[in-house]
């Protein structure tokens, strides 16, 4: 386990201490629980790499070369124009 520091406003810290006291837990345990929840939430439902690779191959087979031929610099010009028009 590593020690780290972060800022938290008074209101959050007071509420966190209250929850810790109520649940006979510690602020550190609650912070670690929060970190675990964020990681679970953000990582949830992400397909594995093999499936992502298969999906990409299917996508490329379906769409590659369906548009007009262009060079990389022609594409870059189109993108520059589009981003200026945002």
């Amino acid at each position, binding site marked *: 386990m590593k020690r780290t520091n972060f800022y938290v406003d008074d209101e959050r810290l007071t509420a966190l201490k209250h929850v810790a006291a109520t649940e006979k837990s510690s602020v550190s345990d609650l912070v670690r629980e929060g970190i675990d929840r964020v990681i679970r939430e953000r990582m949830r439902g992400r*397909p594995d*790499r093999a499936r*992502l690779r298969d999906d990409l191959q299917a*996508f*490329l087979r379906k*769409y590659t070369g369906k548009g007009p031929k262009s060079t990389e610099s022609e*594409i870059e010009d*189109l993108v520059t124009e589009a*981003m200026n028009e945002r």
Partner: protein
Amino acid sequence: MNAVLDTAILISAALAIQRDTMSSSRRLFERGVCRDGFDIVTSEPMLRELSDVLSRPNFALPVSFAIDFVERIALAAVIVRIQGLAMGCRDARDDKVLETALNANADFLVARDRDLHEPSARCALEKVGLGIRDRPIRVVSVRAFADALDGPRFSPLVFAAAGELHPFT
């Protein structure tokens, strides 16, 4: 390692696929959506902007292509919440990119957009300190990032030590 790819890079990748051209942006997209070497980080406002630009009539992209393209990213990416805060970018439309990178604590912001390489944008991302972050978020070009993924310079620390600037692709 994770990286925010700006909208221009993804638009460039979409056009390169549709027009069967290989480019640095396309290679980056293909690696990112397979989580090959790095995770793409994005946010809902960034995905919305991508959809909006892909739907422009001048690109003449089929709707199904635009939907599938955005879906590839949404499936593979880490999507963070942002609040639409003003981040001090010269172009306020770029603020969401910075906020996404900061909220994700991204390793890199890969940007084609010159405004994101401006000092005002870099200042927010490269700030380090107690309670902020222990390393800067590096703003790099597509080519620099692609080279770094495979090359010996692949390391945020090496990038920092080398004082990586912004050689535009």
